[in-house]
Each structure stands twice: as structure tokens, then as C-alpha cells.
């Protein structure tokens, strides 16, 4: 269990800045996800923590000690790779045993034939066998121990890779998109398993993913990275509810948050699609963007009008796409009860509560909004 501290980490590859000054404090024992669109630098950051990549400037501290210049093997971290990186010529048992053999056996003891003659090797090997079997039992891969990775399914390889990581007690686990090679169903299953593993091991987990759903469902905190910047760090619900940047708002949540063109008027009043909202903004007058989550859109009535362009019925819920003037991308609204779907092509009215609005200025920064004097406004009748 270790605290990992990153301060002012920068990384450039051939004059391309990949990381532009990352500061992050990872608490001991926490499960933190680094999440962001592909190419945002999250994997590079993880590799810098692991020591597989050297930062251009900045410092990495593990348990308060600077580890810059310390070899990956000496940092005592474990890592699970996207491709699993299992040694194809070794059996599952030997794959899991590699980190133990590397640490517990001397170079002489690891020699192919001569090593067996060294007396203490036998005892050490017995200890290794016990540890590998314990981990295999934990991950339910005991029957696979004598197989080669080529004979395993994707999910089984994934477990072996996790086994190789947890067999020694590392200070922290680093996961580099470990589920992206699995099919959708297995991915959901492994999500629960990894979260459970964290609860059991209580060690620091750093988890890199481009899938915001993975980050939201598994981790205690998520760190959203965009374009080499750490844009927001916080609890998943917090980041979802209170995005500080429009890029975060758009990245987190599926389907994507709705973005409506809006305005902050000179009197601080806010309008969306040309209609005034019951909000006042703490910002200068000018164009802004009004964001509302799909589940906060109320269909069937409200100040706005549009046309149903597409329906997505998921069984338990449904998404209604509404095209309206002034918007390029149709608005998406969630309906809890798919049995009462509107017709495609039908005109529909919609609205949203004032507290559902997240407003962002032209540069994408969040604008604080407060409900205007609570004038009780009678709900307009449905426009349908």
C-alpha cells in the first residue's frame, strides 16, 4: 500500500508535448482511474509511474521517496498490460512464478541446469509453488496452471496477467486498459472482479482506461485527462454532476451530455436556444453553452420544441433523439418507460429544471449559475 505523488510531470516526444504538467496525489489504498480520450497521455503517465518511461521534467514519489532514476523492477509496482504480455513459451504456472523467481532466486540459481544443483533452490521453489497455487485458487485458474497462454481464452489470459501482478505483494497495481481486448459481456464481469480484488487486497490501484463507464463504476476517484492536462479529479458522482470543464462534461456520461447554444445577457440572465432560463450567471455577457444530461430532459412539455428524429429502445430504458432548430446534433433524452415512446417524426416539446443546467463559457470553463428569484411559474401545457 503506497502513496504516489506526481508533481509537475512533463513529457515530450520529439517536441510534441504529451504531458503538460501533471500534479496528482494518489492516496494509499485508493482505487483511482486515469480516464480520457485516446491520445490524452494517460498511458504515458502510467508508464512514467512504472518507470518504463522517463519524464522530461517533474518528479514521481512513491511513499514519499523520489523514484526518478530508479529502475522499474526496483520500484516494486505490479502492472497489467493491455495485451497481457504473458510469456508465450512459459506455462501459466511459470508465468505467474516469474516475478517470484526473479526476486527470490539468485542469478546462479536461475541457471537452466546448474541452478537445480544449488541446495537452497529446492526450498525456495517450494515456497514459490505454494504462492502461485494460492493466487491461482484465488483467481480460479488452478486447472489452467499447466497450459500455455496460447491455449487460453481472452478472459483467462486476463486472469493470468492479474495473477502475475498480485503474486508478490507490490506497493501498488498499475492497470493499462486491461479490459479493452475483452468482449463487452466479459468486460462488465471483469469490472466487478477487479473492483472486488481491490476491496480484498486494499492496495493502491491506478487504472488507466478510455472507457468512462469503467472508470465510473470501479474507482473511488477518477482523474480526467484531456490533451495532456489533468482537467478534473474527484469522486465519480462529483465529476459527473459538477464537471468543471465542458470537455469533462462531454467525456463523462453515456450518452453524451446535451449541449445547447446559449447566451449570458447583460443583466446576467441566461438563455438557451434564444429562450430565457430561470438562471443568473456569475459571468460576463457573451455566448455560452448550456449542458443538460439526457436524464434531466423532460419530454412532453416545456418551453422548447423539436421533432423526434430517432429512437433507441434498450429495453429497460430508451433514448429519444430530438432535432430542433439551432442545434446541429440532435438532443438526447432518456425515458425510463420505453412502452410510452413518441413516434419518429412527431413534434415534441421539452424542457429541463433550472438545477439541471451546467453552463460553460466560450473557452469551455464552467460558469456558476444560480436560480433566479423563485417565481413560481405555472408549467405550460404540453405542446404536442
Amino acid at each position, binding site marked *: 500500500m503506497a502513496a504516489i505523488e506526481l508533481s509537475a510531470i512533463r513529457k515530450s516526444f520529439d517536441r510534441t508535448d504529451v504531458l503538460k504538467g501533471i500534479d496528482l496525489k494518489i492516496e494509499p489504498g485508493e482505487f483511482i482511474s486515469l480516464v480520457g480520450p485516446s491520445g490524452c497521455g494517460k498511458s504515458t503517465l502510467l*508508464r512514467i509511474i*512504472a*518507470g*518504463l518511461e522517463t519524464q522530461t521534467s517533474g518528479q514521481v514519489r512513491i511513499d514519499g521517496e523520489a523514484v526518478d532514476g530508479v*529502475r*522499474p*523492477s*526496483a520500484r516494486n*509496482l*505490479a*502492472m497489467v*498490460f*493491455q*495485451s497481457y*504480455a*504473458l*510469456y*508465450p*513459451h*512459459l506455462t501459466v504456472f511459470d508465468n505467474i512464478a*516469474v*516475478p517470484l523467481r*526473479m*526476486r527470490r532466486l539468485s*542469478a546462479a540459481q*536461475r541457471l537452466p541446469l546448474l541452478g537445480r544443483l544449488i541446495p537452497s533452490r529446492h526450498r525456495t521453489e517450494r515456497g514459490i509453488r505454494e504462492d502461485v497455487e494460492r493466487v491461482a485458487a484465488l483467481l480460479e485458474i488452478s486447472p489452467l496452471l499447466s497450459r*500455455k497462454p*496460447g491455449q487460453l481464452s481472452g478472459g483467462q489470459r486476463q486472469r493470468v496477467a492479474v495473477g*502475475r501482478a498480485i503474486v508478490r505483494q507490490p506497493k501498488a497495481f498499475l492497470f493499462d486498459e486491461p479490459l479493452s481486448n475483452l468482449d463487452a459481456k466479459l468486460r462488465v464481469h471483469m469490472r466487478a472482479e477487479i473492483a472486488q480484488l481491490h476491496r480484498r487486497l486494499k492496495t493502491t490501484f491506478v487504472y488507466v482506461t478510455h472507457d468512462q463507464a469503467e472508470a465510473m463504476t470501479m474507482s473511488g476517484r477518477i482523474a480526467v485527462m484531456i490533451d495532456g492536462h489533468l482537467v478534473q479529479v474527484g469522486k465519480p458522482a462529483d465529476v459527473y454532476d459538477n464537471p468543471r470543464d465542458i470537455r469533462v462534461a462531454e467525456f463523462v456520461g453515456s450518452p453524451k451530455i446535451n449541449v445547447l447554444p446559449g447566451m449570458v445577457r447583460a443583466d446576467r440572465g441566461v438563455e438557451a436556444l434564444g429562450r430565457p432560463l430561470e438562471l443568473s450567471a456569475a459571468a460576463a455577457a457573451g455566448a455560452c453553452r448550456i449542458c443538460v444530461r439526457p436524464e434531466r430532459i423532460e419530454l412532453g412539455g416545456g418551453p422548447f420544441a423539436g421533432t423526434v428524429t430517432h429512437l433507441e429502445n434498450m429495453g429497460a430504458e430508451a433514448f429519444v433523439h430530438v432535432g430542433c432548430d439551432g442545434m446541429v446534433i440532435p438532443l438526447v433524452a432518456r425515458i425510463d418507460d420505453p412502452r410510452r415512446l413518441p413516434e419518429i417524426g412527431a413534434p415534441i416539446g421539452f424542457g429541463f429544471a433550472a438545477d439541471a443546467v451546467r453552463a460553460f463559457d466560450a473557452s469551455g470553463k464552467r460558469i456558476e449559475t444560480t436560480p433566479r428569484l423563485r417565481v413560481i411559474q405555472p408549467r405550460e401545457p404540453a405542446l404536442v
Partner: protein
Amino acid sequence: MSDMAIRIGAGDSPEQAAVGPRPRSHRAGTALTAQALVAPAAMLMLIILLGPLAGVLALSFTDYQLGAPSFSWIGLANYREMFADKVFWISLRNTLTYVVIVVPGSVALGLGIALLIQSGSSLRSWYRTIYFLPVMATLIAMAIVWEFMLHPQFGLINGLLRSFGMQGHSWLQDRNTALYSLCAIGIWQAVGFNMVLFLAGLVSIPKPLYDAAEIDGASGAWSRFRLVTWPMLGPVTAFVVVISSIRSFQVFDTVQVLTKGGPSKSSEVLIYTMYTEGFEFFRSGYGAALTVVFLVFVLALTLLKARLNRGVHYA
């Protein structure tokens, strides 16, 4: 190759549904079509590869001499003579010595150079070209260059030795060093080829494996080599060893140009004996018997490669 042809000939399932409306003659018809399709390739193989081979085998049981109007079957007499001949045994021993020195030498050096080139960051293609030059050059021409370099009086090698205050040596004229000098040239020539094969193998090793090895505690270059590089190069190494062995068995050009098997048969090798018996003494029957022995060795190596490949894991 031959068993592939058989498999294609016996193939039945995929085209069955499409071909032949009448189910009874259908299977026979498919087999016939398949055989007809295979026939041209099989015929070519028979004419170009198997035919001459059978010819050589038949010839080895005769006393045929090149240009002679007639010949007679003499059974195993050629083989009996060969196994009783001292020159044959010297030649076989020299060939095996050559193989035993050149194969490990060129494989180890080729791998070493490939690793060095791969780990370096600049001038990679330059080094690659330099080491590959001997492979591209005509060995006969290169052998003449070596003859000058190894010349006892004004050769470059002896010149260098003398400038370090050491005694020069008649490399190719001394029966104790002639074969080993040829080995050195053989290694020099084969290293580039092996290096290119190893480079291709190294490039195909997935990078994450090295990362995983590093994380797992393989901090030294040697332990990473043992854990990842060497096992992952398994198939390439098996291929390189067999190819080098076959090529070393076929050593001829340098012997012909530099030593002619001498001095006093100290560098006599199988193909050279074959050449002198068959084309200088025109004893084609005896030459064919030598060829058969040579083929047995090459065939054994090929079988060994097939066996090795089965045990090797392809990632």
C-alpha cells in the same frame, strides 16, 4: 511438399456442396478434379526434383563414366569402395569439422551483431548493409580477395601480425591451419545472412514483453535476454541453425579457389571429393554414391528441423 500435395488431392469437404449434381458419382468426380488440378504441380515436381534424385540413386549402383557408351550394374560396389576409401573418411571428417565450427560461430556472431544493431539507435541500416555485404558478394571473387589477405609474404593478415611483432603464418599452405582458415572465411560469409534473419526475429518480439519482464524484476540485460529474447527467437534460431548447417555442408567455392582440398587432403570436403571424382576423374557412378551420402546428411538435418519446429512455440 509431397504430403501437402497428398492432402490437397484427398481434400473433399468445401467444394462438395457446389460441385456435381449426382450424389453417387459425386465423390469420385471431386477426387478426379482435385487430382487433375494437382497434376501439373506434381508433374513438375517429379521432373525437376524427384526424377533427378532417382537418377542419382540409380547411377550410384552403376560403374557409369561420363561420356562412356555403356555401363553395367555393379550393385553396392561403389559404396563398398567408398567406405573403404581413406579419402572419403577424411573428407567426411573435414566436412563435419567445418560444420561444427562454422554453424555455432556464425549463429552466435549473427545473433550478437543483430542484438547490437537492434539496441543501437543510429546508423542501423548502415551497419546492416556492411554486415550483409559478404552475403551479396560472389564468394568466388571474395575467395580470391581472401587469398591475397592470407598470403604468407604480402598478405594483410600476416602484415598486421608482423606489425604487432608476431610471426606470420602460411595459413592456407599449412595442413594444420588450412581447414580452420576456410572455417573463418565461412563464418565471415554466413554471419550477415544469419544477422538479417535474427534482426527480423528481434523486430517481431512484442515490446510489452520487455516491459513486463522489466516490471517482473528482470533488471539486467542478461535476464531479459534469457526470459524474453532467447525463447521468443526459438523458431528463428532453429531455422538459422538448419540453414547454416545445410549451407556449411555444401562448402565448395572457397575450397576450390583457395586450397583444392590440400595440402595433403587436409581441407578435402564432401562436395569437393564429389566434384573431383565426378568431373575430373569422370567416375559418375562413384560421384553419385557420394552424392547419396551427402543427401542423407541434408535430409537428416531437414527432418531435425521439422522435429525442432514442433517443440517450438510460435507466439
